[in-house]
């Protein structure tokens, strides 16, 4: 018997835990976007949870943005990135004339932000730092306007630029203190780190900008075909050969055995791209000057010779959406530790098939032949019947308590009742956002 064998969590308690952070949004048809619905949910393992998520629509364009952020060394960086990155992207992608207009409105207070957020009631907002965030965003816009544009940049480059700019701003804000005092919040933000995976959906164009080990997978189904999982991001970790090659080639030859060791950057950090984490970015001297007084002398990693070792620049993958592309799953590695992309896509696919189970299945058209109806029914029979209305919850439930094609309450209950001090050894924070396309 397990040491936690006596712990029992009822199915109702399991549900109340799983439902706590779920959010389902039917996107208004009038927005003219290709996104129909999105569903998101989070389940914490760390306390406080280090994952963040953000979803928003651009105010001045029809694009929509979805992000998942996996923090490490604390939630501070992920929190700030989740509050700001989408604004930065919105600012970067605006056409030059619109940007000028937006800046005017921003300056006279008509526009506070460049995106409308879809918020969960429990979402935390750093109220006391909004002024700073807005100031930095304004500066970014001004800088962009100041550049004399000859032609529009490629979207992919824009996304990379906005990531870099935010990371640069974070650093700058941490260093700048008005009176030499310890910049508590700024330093904590950059002392911690965050991977980010953001989907930018503009009409039929999908861009996924990924920095770190979150992952985006597209669920595709052509007529009569089984579901297929299309990767639209690459993990930036030591398993990624190209990524390892990139880092090794950016540093001295004699560092090749130390720059990535034991599958980690400088033996320490698993993701190879991230926001914050200035311990792998700043020069030794800057760290001595800014970090040592507050975080101690051992802050600088071993074998730290040619910084920066870490970048926040995302890898951007563009995908032109087709009618066969039915949904996009964005999730932090907590989910992917438990589910393969194929399984996740199949689960969402089944969910689509079964979601009308409450109102029960009815042949979509009276013109369907009996054989076609039979095929649909057979697929439904093979599917796992979801218990959740939110597909993100469905994925999390399966990730923690799924066995083959059913749920095991005891597995789920045991996973959810692990005490705080050991839970992290069994599972990571999980954040899932599923975006359904029209």
């Amino acid at each position, binding site marked *: 018997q397990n040491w936690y064998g006596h712990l029992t969590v009822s199915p109702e308690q399991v549900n109340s835990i799983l439902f706590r952070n779920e959010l389902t949004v039917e996107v208004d048809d009038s927005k003219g976007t290709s996104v129909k619905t999105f569903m998101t949910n989070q389940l914490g393992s760390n306390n406080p949870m280090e994952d963040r998520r953000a979803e928003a629509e651009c105010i001045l364009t029809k694009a929509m943005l979805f992000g998942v952020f996996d923090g490490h060394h604390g939630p501070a960086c992920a929190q700030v990135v989740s509050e700001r990155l989408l604004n930065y992207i919105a600012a970067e992608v605006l056409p030059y004339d619109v940007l000028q207009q937006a800046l005017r409105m921003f300056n006279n207070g008509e526009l506070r932000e460049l995106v409308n957020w879809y918020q969960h009631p429990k979402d935390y907002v750093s109220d006391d730092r909004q002024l700073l965030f807005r100031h930095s965003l304004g500066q970014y816009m001004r800088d962009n306007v100041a550049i004399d544009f000859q032609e529009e940049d490629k979207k992919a480059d824009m996304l990379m630029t906005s990531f870099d700019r935010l990371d640069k701003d974070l650093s700058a804000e941490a260093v700048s203190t008005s009176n030499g005092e310890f910049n508590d919040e700024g330093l904590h933000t950059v002392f911690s780190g965050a991977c980010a995976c953001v989907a930018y959906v503009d009409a039929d164009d999908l861009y996924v900008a990924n920095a770190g080990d979150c992952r985006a997978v597209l669920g595709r189904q052509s007529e009569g075909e089984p579901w297929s999982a299309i990767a639209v991001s690459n993990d930036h970790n030591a398993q990624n050969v190209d990524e390892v090659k990139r880092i090794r080639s950016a540093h001295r030859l004699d560092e090749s055995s130390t720059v990535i060791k034991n599958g980690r950057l400088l033996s320490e950090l698993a993701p190879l791209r991230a926001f914050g984490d200035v311990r792998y970015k700043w020069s030794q001297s800057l760290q001595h000057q800014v970090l040592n007084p507050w975080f101690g002398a051992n802050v600088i990693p071993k074998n730290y010779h040619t910084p920066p070792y870490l970048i926040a620049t995302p890898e951007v993958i563009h995908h032109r959406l087709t009618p066969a592309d039915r949904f996009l799953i964005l999730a932090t590695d907590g989910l992917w530790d438990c589910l393969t992309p194929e399984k996740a896509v199949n689960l969402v696919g089944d969910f689509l098939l079964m979601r009308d189970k409450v109102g*029960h299945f009815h*042949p979509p058209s009276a013109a369907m*032949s*009996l054989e076609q109806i*039979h095929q649909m*029914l057979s697929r*439904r029979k093979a599917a796992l019947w979801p218990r959740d209305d939110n597909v993100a919850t469905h994925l999390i439930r399966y990730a923690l308590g799924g066995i083959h094609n059913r749920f095991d309450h005891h597995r789920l209950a045991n996973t959810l009742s692990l005490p705080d001090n050991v839970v992290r050894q069994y599972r990571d924070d999980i954040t899932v956002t599923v975006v359904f396309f029209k």
Partner: protein
Amino acid sequence: SQDADHSTTSDLPQRARAVICGGGIAGLSTAYHLAKLGWKDVVLLEQGKLASGTTWNASGILGILRRSHFRTRLSRMSYDLYSQLEAETGIQTGLHRCGSVNIGQTKDLMVELQKRHANAKAWGIDSELLSMGDVHRLLPWIRADDLEGGLLVRDDASVQVKEVTRALAKAANDRGVTLLENIEVKRVVSSGGRVSSVHTDRGSIECEAFVNCAGLWARALGLASSPEVRVPLYPLAQQYLITKPIKSRTLDGNGPFVRDMDSLLYIQEHSGGFLFGGYAPKGKPVFEEGLPLKKDSEHIHLPDDWDHFRHLLEGFLHRVPQASDVQFEKLYNSPESFTPDGEFIIGEAPEVRNYFVLAGFGSLGLTHAGGAGELLARLIAIGHTNMDYWPVDVQRFSPQHNSKAFLRARVKEIESIHYRVAYPAFSHRTGRKLRCPPLYSRLGQGGAVFGERMGVERPKWYMAPDDTDEFAHETQRGTFGKPQWFGLVESEYWACRESVCLMDMSAFTKLELTSLGNEATMLLQRLCPNDLDCPIGSVVHTGMLNERGGYECDCSIARLDTNRYFIICPTIQLVKAHHWISNHLPPDGSVTLRDLTNQYAGLNVLGPKARDVLQKLTTTSLSSADFRPFSFKELNVGFATGVKAMTITHAGEDGMVLYIPNETAVQVYDALLEAGKDCGIRNAGYYALRWLRIEKFYFYWGEDFDSTTTPYEIGRDMRVKFDKGVEFIGKSALLKQRQEGVKRQLLGFILEDHNINTDLWPWGREPIYRNGQHAGMTTCSSYGPTQGKMTCLGWLTNRDADTGQMLEVTPDFVNKGQYEIDIAGKRFPLKARLYPSQLGAKQPTHG
């Protein structure tokens, strides 16, 4: 209703002779037949419109050939009724002898179809076995290449359900029945144990008899009377689909309907397309939250459930490949009520006199209600029927069977029962452990594989304790031949014959009858043909007969004291025997009847060493001189006191049945196992008991004979005591029969030239032929290891080949015939025996 041509006046009469609740086919048929029997003052109340419950939704299939002769007779009565209604009312009922084809995909189903064919031949029904090629020629539109064959039943029919009910209503109305719609029965009130009036939402009606034909609502209506009447049934969703017409071919609409029983599917031609439906492998109970009321004229239906229909669609598309492109017209879903055993419910409720029930047809209402209505009307008007209806009697259920949770669990399995291969000795999987005797867990530890009767779990046989559940499952696999459990039961049989065994008999019904004076004796003397004014301590095997001399119950009665009797009845008579006796209790309350069934465990200690083993645990002498066969003693056994011991074993072996107070049963059982260790004591199940009793021609009530059977017909002449000086019920009928001789006789038959390893076994319900002429049916059978032969019990009749008249069955007639049994189309010679072979203490030739 709009097309009604009968009066539906809304004036509620103040009184009526009979009030029938429910205007479906069951209620209308009962009303019609009551009127036909001369009951003019009959009122039928319907909460909505006539035939709007589940009757309207019937697909119109009227299958004449059923598994049992009883139900075949009923469906033929229905057929005759529906055909006669056309002439009587002028309403065309669309009755059409379209025939049916049962197709078989598996060898086992073909065995069953061959058995049905053999029965059809015996019962005079036109049927024909088909090869795969025959099926293909007859039904070119179905896929036949995976079939083993089929059975064409030319007498099966179809009918327009709506027209039949319209005609029934008209005919009933013409004969004076008052049909009232939109009246809801709220409560049935009784006084003095009899129905006195019926309360409705429009006032109440006083009545002599009430008939609950409320279909889906019958159970709820039963609960709405005081005392509550148990009508155990529960609704399941039943679906069928109608396709659009098929363009590529022409259907004449007159072809036979098809039953693909392996796929639980039936298919009918319908308006140039098809109508198909069937049964779910696992039924879907509906209306958990309570039944809907039917106030409006809407038919009751459920939202379609395509997921639940998937397997039928799959089976249909497989069977009719050209239908894959066709579109559907509509999927119909309506509730049908099912009972715990799949048979409908008829008869007088044991709880309230003159409260009658007819419901629970489980989608076979059209087929059976015509005949069943006639049966019930006779029961109401005449007080009895000439047909035994025990298989469908409302009294066949225990009180536990009416539990909602049980019903929900059980009916899931029951839905498909009429389409599944009817393997012999079948046990339900769901709704088990309804009643567990005190030794249940002990016997389970001992390797018991349980079966269930009347909800009681009883061991069928025992596995070795180290055998797995998987093995138990394997031994229970259905077969028509030598069963997997053969070796296990055989070794139990020999242990019973040669040493000593313990058998749990707790399931038996146990009643106690007491009085202050001699009233109990007087009552039993009137109820029983045998002499119950016997010495204290004797056990009398007797029955209780009805006026026609038929067995209402079969029992062993121990006289415990001058005015105290202990009555042991078959398990299945838990309700029936109690009901029969309590209906005859003197009205002055001088005799007390108590049901002790659940207070005593029964343990049969049988075998030549039984007395030796028991003697170790008691100081009372158990020698056969001191404790003679057919006697009773109260013993102390081990730590237990007050153990009722009767020297009968129901198996014809030496030994005794102990009735042990529940709380001491485990101790006595353990003590017996310990005491009998040196004699090789072991457990035995009731299959071993069956082998023992069938070999010795011990007939069982409910299995071999029934309420229409007299003692003379089953060789129990010795148990009828005309000279005991008391007029017992049924005496005059028996005297008459003694004069005239019996027209049928229950006999033992020994099967010859039969290889138990390679031939199919007889299991009961096989036709018996005498000199090539159908002369009866077997009731049950078993293997007899001592003789190494199969023994069948069965009925023999003597029908004059020319006149069709039934003649006396004399010993001469029995002895001079050449007998054969038809087992699934193959005939085997039989030897008829009036008396069992003397098995004695002969040592077996068995290794």
